[in-house]
């Protein structure tokens, strides 16, 4: 029994409720949101420290024993992702006051922000498939509200698509859980894993696995199911885009990682081999999208798709190195996507447009923004001193040892094109002649740069400090490759 495991869910939930009372007082909301998010960051780091030292925290809520009650499992993978979520949320909470309209802030922005964080943390920590669905809905409900916040015409159009596709996949999620429940008779993930193991994943279970994969792939925006994502992620405010880009699709890919490393692991040639193909196609189509547009926000949004492809590649290959690479890349990508969304938000704000053809020479007026973009392009593409490199290196090493040469070549080529797609913003927007119209209305970037530097610092630490971080990532992948540990720690046999 340890109530610590529920704190990352309950603190943002209470914060959201309290901030709903103060929605009209912007000054108080801003201060309270910063204080609450820092408390939550502190608590999450403390829990991560405890879990990495003493092993997973299991909380049987209400005192009901393992397969009967709702179990919260704060294992090393979950706490790592919760900590990353809180780092991102901290940056966004400090960026928001400088980027949102007061009108948007008074319409419950901070309340929905904290409910989103509560939903994401809950989805990472839960050990129960139906609860995972409930937390998915909590975070999706908050995201529906955030995507239309402001009520612009394009926001309304894109939110219709977003809500429809997510409702459809949620219905499929419930259906898949119903099928699974009718076959194995439980929704507790550890007990499902045990029972799937007993029957060696016979035919109908593989069908349900594919159905669940379809659901999570829609949430995670993988290859054939990503068409709803890029446009709906660029229409809201930059802070909201950053939260969506960094968190929502990653919850989907986390669910795939959890379900296909714990439950459905007995027909690798059927499911996991298909993942490698899907990963490759996601890389190709995502990068084509990123190269096809000159809208800087859309370039970043399309870059989410190949990143999810990289993580899927590791899950598909499914050996020690590849899984470590996936986890490393997942953490790295959450941080850098948030930084990039905040960065292009700031660039679009100072340039007055997000169309790349309409501005140039920004480096003369905003050198700091320019060099931050330059560094983050290197981080994203995986240039050696930074964090993207370690993740990709592990992924490639794992795939080569499994003789998946085609995906390795594809991954290397797409990294090159990812670098080009971000560098295009730097070359066309920041180089070139001074644009005289900009100097008359030089805008202050006060408050916008701090959170971006904060996030990039973590990217650099993840890259340079790989010696210190890699052992814990490796221990997570060892833990994931041996589902017995999870089952025993939850069911206590």
């Amino acid at each position, binding site marked *: *029994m340890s*109530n610590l495991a*529920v704190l990352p869910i*309950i603190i943002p*939930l*209470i914060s959201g*409720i*309290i901030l*709903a*009372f103060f929605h009209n007082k912007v000054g108080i909301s801003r201060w309270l949101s910063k204080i609450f998010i820092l408390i939550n960051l502190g608590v999450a780091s403390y829990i991560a420290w405890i879990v990495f030292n003493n092993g997973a925290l299991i*909380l*049987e*809520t*209400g*005192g009901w024993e393992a397969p009967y009650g709702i179990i*919260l499992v704060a294992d090393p993978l979950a706490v790592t992702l919760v900590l990353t979520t809180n780092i991102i949320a901290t940056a966004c909470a400090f960026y928001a006051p400088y980027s949102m309209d007061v009108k948007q802030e008074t319409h419950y922005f901070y*309340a929905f922000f904290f409910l989103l964080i509560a939903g994401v943390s809950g989805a990472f920590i839960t050990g129960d498939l139906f609860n995972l669905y409930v937390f998915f809905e909590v975070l999706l409900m908050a995201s529906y509200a955030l995507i239309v916040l402001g009520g612009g015409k394009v926001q309304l159009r894109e939110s219709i698509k977003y809500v429809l596709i997510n409702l459809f996949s949620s219905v499929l999620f419930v259906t898949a859980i119903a099928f699974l429940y009718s076959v194995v008779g439980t929704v507790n993930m550890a007990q499902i894993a045990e029972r799937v193991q007993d029957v060696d994943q016979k035919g109908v279970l593989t069908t349900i696995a594919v159905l669940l994969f379809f659901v999570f792939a829609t949430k995670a925006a993988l290859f054939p199911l990503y068409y709803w994502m890029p446009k709906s992620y660029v229409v809201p405010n930059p802070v909201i885009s950053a939260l969506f880009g960094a968190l929502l699709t990653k919850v989907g890919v986390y669910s795939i990682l959890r379900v296909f490393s714990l439950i459905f692991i007995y027909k690798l040639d059927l499911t996991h081999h298909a993942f490698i193909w899907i990963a490759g196609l996601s890389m190709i189509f995502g990068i084509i999208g990123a190269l096809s547009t000159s809208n800087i926000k859309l370039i970043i949004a399309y870059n989410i798709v190949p990143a999810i492809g990289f993580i899927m590649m590791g899950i598909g290959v499914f050996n020690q190195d590849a899984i470590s690479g996936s986890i490393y890349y997942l953490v790295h990508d959450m941080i850098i996507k948030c930084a990039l969304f905040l960065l292009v938000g700031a660039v679009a704000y100072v340039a007055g447009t997000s169309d790349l053809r309409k501005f140039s020479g920004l480096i003369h007026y905003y050198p700091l923004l320019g060099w931050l973009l330059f560094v983050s392009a290197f981080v994203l593409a995986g240039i050696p001193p930074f964090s993207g490199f370690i993740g990709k290196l592990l992924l490639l090493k794992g795939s080569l040892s499994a003789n998946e040469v085609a995906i390795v070549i594809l991954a290397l080529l797409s990294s090159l094109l990812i670098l080009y797609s971000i560098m295009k913003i730097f070359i066309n927007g920041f180089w070139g002649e001074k644009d005289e119209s900009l100097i008359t209305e030089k805008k202050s970037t006060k408050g916008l740069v701090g959170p971006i530097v904060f996030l990039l610092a973590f990217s650099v630490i993840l890259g340079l400090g790989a010696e210190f971080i890699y052992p814990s990532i490796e221990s997570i992948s060892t833990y994931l490759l041996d589902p017995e540990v999870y089952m025993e720690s939850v069911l206590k046999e």
Partner: protein
Amino acid sequence: MYKPNDLILRTTTSVIAFILLGFAVYLLLAGHNSPGGGFVGGLMTASAIVLMYMSYGMEAVKKILPINFRTLIPIGLLIAVSTGIGSFVFNVPFLSHTFGHFTLPILGEVELATAMLFDMGVYVTVLGVTMTIILTIANDR
């Protein structure tokens, strides 16, 4: 000007609304041992209030029920969450509930459970959400 005479509607409403409210409280309290609970109780209360809005109009009901239904949502959530938080104080797993037998005046011995407080939170939240949705759409300009 055409002015409808809705005397029968208003008279029956003033009777039916109280029956509905009483039934809603019954559903809320009965939830532990028979069908009912916070959710359906909240919906029933909301339907009673909506009936009053329909027959008496906006201004009249606002005067007798000066409640901002939107603030009911966070109040209800706070009640529900704090029943879970209570477990931190008593050092038991989150969301643990307990019960006891108490002797009250008039009612005699009754069984009171803390799960009832959670249901109260659900009740208030459902009432707030339903009324906010209906009144926001009804007030559309």
